[in-house]
């Protein structure tokens, strides 16, 4: 396994109370695998990613759990040790390409430093590698782009630069936090394709965070659905899309327009995600759940009603369950 996250809890100790942004997350990811991490806004996707990077700032902290990269424990590792992991063995791509590159530094500066932070290499050799990386993510005239400032590049170009930076040091894992949300649809699908083929080619594992199920369906091998700081369903992408088990996943699928359900009415999940500072007793989805019963006042545990598909629910939709 490239990465094994088990029972991860990341909380923010704010003046108003404890925000349990991540509250018991488990997942694994194999080399070359692409995991789609899906959920509504505030479900804890980004915080899961930042926890893996060791980039949780005060007042937040990883309270308990384990994050193992190729067997090596990262929770509790020293800041120095984490620095050698970041950008080198685990890289991250952010949502807004307009904001992720430093506006006053040239592209070459920002790429070369990413290499030189982790290995002793001459500037010339580093530049050559940067040029190759830009070519790899489909940037025309990379030589020229290297000398550009971020504002001289389009949003799509900038996100490609960020992706190139992520791949520079051939990491084991890349965490992409909604990397295409800010881009228009054609660029979005181009970038998804490039990222996908790069991962398959290099064997890099990829966590693709998004709230858009359609995007995940296009890129991921597996999917993990997050709700209120927990993973409520996980499984192979086709299986989950075909036969979602958790009422929340079913609700999410109902709100995605797909080609084979054209003409049908889109349903919205009623209600709002709960406040993670003040979770209801029992199942966190309970207040919005159409299948809720008195049993649901207790906390549901993970079960595996079908092979390679796990769910956290007392009354999962059955096999061949109607969508």
């Amino acid at each position, binding site marked *: 396994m490239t990465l094994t996250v088990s029972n991860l809890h990341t909380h923010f100790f704010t003046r108003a109370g404890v925000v349990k942004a991540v509250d018991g997350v488990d997942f694994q990811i194999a080399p070359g695998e692409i995991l789609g991490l899906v959920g509504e806004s505030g479900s804890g996707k980004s915080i899961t990613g930042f926890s893996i990077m060791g980039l949780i700032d005060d007042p937040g902290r990883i309270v308990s759990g384990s994050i193992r990269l190729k067997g090596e424990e990262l929770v509790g590792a020293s800041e120095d040790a984490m620095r050698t992991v*970041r950008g080198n063995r685990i890289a991250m791509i*952010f949502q807004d390409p307009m904001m992720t590159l430093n506006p006053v530094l040239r592209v070459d500066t920002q790429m070369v430093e990413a290499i030189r932070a982790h290995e002793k290499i001459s500037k010339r050799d580093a530049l050559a590698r940067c040029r190759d990386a830009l070519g790899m993510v489909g940037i025309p005239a990379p030589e020229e782009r290297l000398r550009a400032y971020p504002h001289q590049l389009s949003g799509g170009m900038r996100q490609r630069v*960020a992706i190139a930076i992520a791949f520079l040091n051939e990491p084991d894992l890349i965490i992409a936090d909604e990397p295409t949300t800010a881009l228009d649809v054609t660029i979005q699908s181009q970038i998804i394709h490039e990222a996908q083929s790069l991962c398959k080619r290099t064997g890099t594992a990829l966590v693709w965070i998004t709230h858009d199920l359609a995007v995940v369906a296009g890129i991921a091998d597996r999917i993990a659905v997050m709700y209120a700081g927990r993973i409520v369903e996980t499984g192979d992408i086709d299986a989950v899309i075909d036969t979602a088990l958790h009422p929340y996943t079913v609700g999410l699928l109902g709100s995605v327009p797909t080609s084979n359900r054209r003409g049908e009415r889109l349903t919205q999940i009623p209600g709002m995600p709960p406040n993670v500072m003040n979770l209801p007793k029992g199942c966190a989805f309970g207040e919005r759940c159409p299948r809720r019963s008195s049993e649901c006042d207790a906390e549901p545990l993970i079960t595996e009603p079908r092979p390679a598909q796990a769910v956290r629910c007392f009354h999962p939709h059955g096999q061949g369950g109607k969508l």
Partner: protein
Amino acid sequence: MTVFVLRRLIQAAIVVLLMSMIVFFGVNVVGDPVDMLVSPEADQAEIARVIRDFGLDRPIYEQYWYFLKGAASGDLGNSFIFGQPALKLILHHMPATLELAFAALFMAIILGIPLGLYAGLYPDRASSKAIMAGSIFGFSLPTFWVGLMLIMIFAVWLGWLPATGRGDTATFLGIEASFFTRDGLSHLILPALNLALLKISLVIRLTRAGAREAIQQDYIKFARAKGLSTGRIVFVHLMKNIMIPVVTVLGLEFGSLIAFSVVTETIFAWPGMGKLLIEAILQLDRPIVVAYLMIIVILFVVINLVVDILYSLLDPRVRLGEQGA
């Protein structure tokens, strides 16, 4: 860029001309210099002669016209008191003021930026809060009072530093300054600190605000995600962004540093233009006052221009915008 500079130069010329009018007419409304120029025993004929000699009998617009004609050839009139060209007198006193202003600017930078950066990076520490409280004092205490306190503490009680004068000067690379001698330096510290206090506070606040804002930005988080060292993140990624507003504001403030040195120079008997100005005002020596104000106006205009150019060099986004325009 050339078009930009040219346009700014024309604007500058108009500003200087307008200011010359305001300054000239403004100064001529105040007081009657004749009282100062003639001895109390002088008779009517003597007074009339003085008035004619100095051109004070002519209508004011005619005086202004002569002033402009002279100014165009670098002659801003003769001092009523010293009989020497006003411009020469002011230029003679300028190096001392410039030295004081540069020393204050230097202090503002080497004290203000590190303190502001520290307070911005660790806002919750008690030491940061102390820095910010100190900067409020820097803003609100009047310069003359702080100057007197500095003299009282460091010159009178502790006896560490001299309170008045410029001390020994030495010439280095054609520049005469007290900066180059030990004695001169010890004379420079107190007045420069007094003049710098407001600017140190300003730089602390600007740097802190800049750091607080920049640190929230995605590009800093991305830089951390790349595994860069803290040093590189702070001194390259953060500082490059903070320096844009700090340099701009400091540049613009340099003019006011020179203008405000009037108070400091008076307190510390620093022989600069400011002291000359105060004496000229007391003696109604109009040409000196006018020449001083004109030089300050020109200084401000030049500084503004330089800052604009510097700003466009620092910020790549502005640099390219100019080329496009």
